[in-house]
C-alpha cells in the first residue's frame, strides 16, 4: 500500500487579532474628543455593561441565524416576555427585593433569571415547532411569520397585564454606584457585565468542550452534512432555538431592570442593535457577537455623549464600516 503523500506543511494561520481590538481602537479614538478621564471611564464602563446586555440578547439569535438560517423577528417578544416573567417574580417577592439584604435581593434576582430562562425557553420550543419549522428555508415567510408571532405575544402580554408601563424596581442592593477613582459605575451595570461575561464564557465552554457544542459549530457551517453523518438536525435546531429564546429571556430581565419598567413592546427597542451586532459579528459567531456588542455599545454611548443627534446614525455606521472592511463580519464562521 502506498500512503498518500502528506503534502506540504500547513500555511501559517493568521491570528485574527485586529477585529478583537476594534473596541479598544474606538475607545482610544474617542478619548481625545471626550477629554475628561473620569467621564471617559464612566462612559466606557457603562458601555461594557450595555454591550454585555446586548450580547446576552444577541448571542442566542446569532446561533439560530447562523445555524438554522432563520430570521427570527420574534426575538424581541422573547425579550419582553423575559422581563414580564421577572416582574411576576419581583412583585410578590417585593419584601425580599426591597429588603436591605444582599442574600435576599440576590435570591429574588436569581429566581427571576431562572424563571425567565425556563418560561421563555419553553415558549421558544412552541414557537419553533408551531411557526418556524414550517417555513425553514423560506426567508420571506420567516419574516412574516415571526413578526406575526411577535405581535401575538405582545398583544397577549398587553391583554394580560395591560398596555401601560409596569415599574420593575431594582433590588435594593443593586441600586447606587461604585466609584473607580473619579469614575462612577452603577452597581447593576457591573452585575449585568458579570452576567454577560458568564454567558460568554459558558457558551464558549459548551461550544468548544462538549459534543453538543461540536454539533452546533458543525451545524452552523453545514447543516446538511451534519444530518448526513447521522444526527437528527431538527432536534438540534429546536434545542438551539430554545437556548436562543432562553438567552433572550435572560437578556430581557436585565433590559427590564435597566429600564426600570416593562411594557409589551419593549423588546423592539434593543432588537435593531441585536440584529446589527449579529451581522457585525458574523452569522453564527459567538466570539464575533461578543466583540460586536461591545463595539456597538461603545460607539452608541460615545456618540450619545458627544453628539446626541448622531445617536441613530451611530447605530448603523459601525455596521456599514465593518461590512465594507469585512463583508462576512468580524469573525466569519468558515464555510458560510
Amino acid at each position: 500500500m502506498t500512503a498518500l503523500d502528506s503534502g506540504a506543511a500547513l500555511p501559517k494561520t493568521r491570528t485574527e487579532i485586529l477585529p478583537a481590538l476594534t473596541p479598544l481602537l474606538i475607545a482610544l479614538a474617542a478619548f481625545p474628543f471626550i477629554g475628561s478621564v473620569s467621564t471617559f471611564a464612566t462612559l466606557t464602563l457603562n458601555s461594557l455593561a450595555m454591550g454585555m446586555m446586548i450580547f446576552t440578547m444577541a448571542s442566542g439569535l446569532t446561533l439560530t441565524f447562523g445555524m438554522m438560517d432563520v430570521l427570527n423577528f420574534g426575538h424581541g417578544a422573547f425579550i419582553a416576555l423575559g422581563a414580564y416573567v421577572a416582574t411576576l417574580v419581583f412583585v410578590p417577592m417585593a419584601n425580599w427585593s426591597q429588603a436591605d439584604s444582599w442574600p435576599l435581593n440576590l435570591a429574588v434576582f436569581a429566581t427571576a433569571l431562572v424563571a425567565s430562562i425556563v418560561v421563555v425557553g419553553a415558549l421558544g420550543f412552541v414557537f419553533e415547532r408551531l411557526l418556524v419549522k414550517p417555513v425553514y428555508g423560506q426567508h420571506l415567510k420567516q419574516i412574516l411569520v415571526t413578526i406575526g408571532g411577535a405581535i401575538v405575544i405582545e398583544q397577549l402580554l398587553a391583554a394580560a397585564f395591560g398596555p401601560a408601563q409596569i415599574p420593575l424596581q431594582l433590588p435594593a442592593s443593586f441600586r447606587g454606584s461604585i466609584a473607580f477613582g473619579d469614575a462612577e459605575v452603577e452597581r447593576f451595570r457591573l452585575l449585568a457585565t458579570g452576567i454577560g461575561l458568564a454567558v460568554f464564557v459558558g457558551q464558549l465552554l459548551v461550544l468548544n468542550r462538549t459534543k453538543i457544542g461540536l454539533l452546533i459549530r458543525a451545524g452552523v457551517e453545514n447543516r446538511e452534512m451534519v444530518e448526513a453523518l447521522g444526527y437528527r438536525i431538527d432536534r438540534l435546531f429546536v434545542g438551539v432555538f430554545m437556548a436562543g429564546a432562553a438567552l433572550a429571556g435572560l437578556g430581557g430581565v436585565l433590559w427590564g431592570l435597566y429600564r426600570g419598567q416593562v411594557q409589551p413592546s419593549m423588546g423592539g427597542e434593543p432588537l435593531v442593535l441585536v440584529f446589527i451586532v449579529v451581522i457585525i459579528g458574523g452569522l453564527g459567531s459567538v466570539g464575533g457577537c461578543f466583540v460586536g456588542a461591545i463595539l456597538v455599545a461603545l460607539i452608541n454611548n460615545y456618540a450619545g455623549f458627544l453628539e446626541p443627534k448622531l445617536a441613530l446614525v451611530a447605530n448603523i455606521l459601525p455596521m456599514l464600516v465593518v461590512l465594507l472592511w469585512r463583508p462576512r463580519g468580524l469573525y466569519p464562521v468558515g464555510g458560510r
Partner: protein
Amino acid sequence: MSERLALKGVHTHIGRYHILQGVDFDAPAGKTTMLLGRNGAGKTTCLRTIMGLWRASRGEILLGAKPLHGLAASEVARASVGYVPETMAIFSDLTVKENLILGAREKPLDDIRLAWIFGFFPALKKFWLSRAGSLSGGQKQMVAIARAIVEPRSLLLIDEPTKGLAPAIVGGLIECLLEIKRTGVTIVLVEQNFRVAREVGDFARVMDNGRVIHEGDMAELAADAELQTHLLGLSLEAHQ
C-alpha cells in the same frame, strides 16, 4: 458487513425539474460500482437521493433488504451508509480530530481503525489538531473520506473524490480507495476521471438524462474505446 444496493425505478424531482427519470441499477455487495456519465447526467442527484438528502418521488432504494427510500438523511446514515459529497463538506472551523469524532457519532474513536486510516492518510495524523479549513485540497479530501470510514460501513457513497486534485495526489488517492475496497465494503463511486474508474471500479453504470443507459463490468468498458465514446462521448485515452 457489506450489503447490496438496489435502485428500482427511482424518480427525483428538484423543484419543477424532473432529474432522475426512473433509475434502475444495483451495486453488488463488497464491490465497487462506478457511476459514470456526462456532466448533468444525474450522478450526484442519484447519490444524494440514495443518501436521503433529496427525496425520491417514486421508486425503491434497498440496502440489502432494508428500504432507504423515504428515510431522512440521518436515518440513512444510521443504516450504515457513509457519504463523501462532491464538495467534501468538511467542517472547516473544526479540527481534523473533531471532524472524525462527528463521523464516529456516539462511539469513541477506535485507535485500531485510526491507525489503519493514518496508514494511508498520514497527513491526518500530522495535522490531527489543526483546523480542517487550513488544509490543502487533497488533505481536505482525506478528511472527508476518513470521516466517512472512521467506523465500518455497509455502503460508501463517494462523489468525485479526485475533482480538482493534482495528478500526483490522484495516484495516491487511487491506492487509498483500493485499500478501502479491500475491507469488503460496498462502494458506489461517482468519478469523471476514467483512470480512477478503470483502476478502482469492478462494475460500471453509465447514466444519461436521469437514467442508467449501460450496466456492465468496468473492465469491459475500459477495454472498449468505441463503447466509451458512444456512452461517455470521450475515449479512455483522452482521460489518462
